[in-house]
């Protein structure tokens, strides 16, 4: 029992140390990805400051200039950004 608690504690500590930074890196990569997509599509944005995941390949990106776009993959396999 005592060993189990120790193992659980250790797992939680490791998750805190490793998964936290990993997620932050993933988030930063997604922000950069969304920024690039919106720029490639020629839409005004600047930098994307936050992204909300709505579903698979479907995100709401909020830009530095206040614009919000829904960035998603349509049925034809094209990345589309529509202003919200």
């Amino acid at each position, binding site marked *: 029992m005592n060993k189990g608690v*120790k193992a659980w504690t*250790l797992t939680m*500590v*490791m998750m805190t*140390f*490793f998964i936290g930074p990993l997620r932050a890196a993933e988030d930063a*990569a*997604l922000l*950069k*990805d*969304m920024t*690039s*997509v919106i720029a*490639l*599509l020629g839409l005004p944005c600047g930098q994307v400051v936050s992204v909300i995941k709505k579903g698979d*390949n479907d995100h709401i990106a909020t830009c530095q200039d206040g614009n919000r776009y829904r*960035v998603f*993959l349509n049925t034809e*396999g*094209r*990345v589309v950004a529509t202003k919200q």
Partner: protein
Amino acid sequence: MHVMRLVGLLFFLLAAGCVGVERAPPPTGAPPAEAAAVEPSKIGSTGQGVAKVESQNAKTPAKLPAEQPRKQSATPSSGKPGTPPLDLTALETRLKETKAIGVFTKITLKNQVDDLLSQFRAYYQGRVKTTLAELRQPYDMLLLKVLSLLQDGDPELARAIVASREAIWGILADPAKFATL
């Protein structure tokens, strides 16, 4: 005592992870200076490239498709000696594998490449009234977009693309080579 060992191992792993993170930037540290040095000339050459093509087109508009293959065969040998020019398949593979661009960006770029190829297809099929010189502009624009995305994260690939720029254009501008794509 056992817990102390585990905690020690944890901090060792954590430190190893941090060392790995710190080690990542140096490879990009040296090349960006070169990439930044390449960039202005690249932008300049784009303008010149378009101007050159336009002036050539003004002189001999009907002969352009026939002249392009010669231009393509001449360009790779006159390119930078260090970076061999790519073909389209190799370029596609490296672009797919690079970590400098996110998945959505890659799909968007692929969409834009497909759009450009559709424009060329329509041009060769005579469905649109345009010239090769006019098609050079979107080609250069797309290449600039790709380079701007790659120059910080994957400067090697960016340099390779710059080196093979005319070779790719040679394939696109030659109806026979384009048909094989």
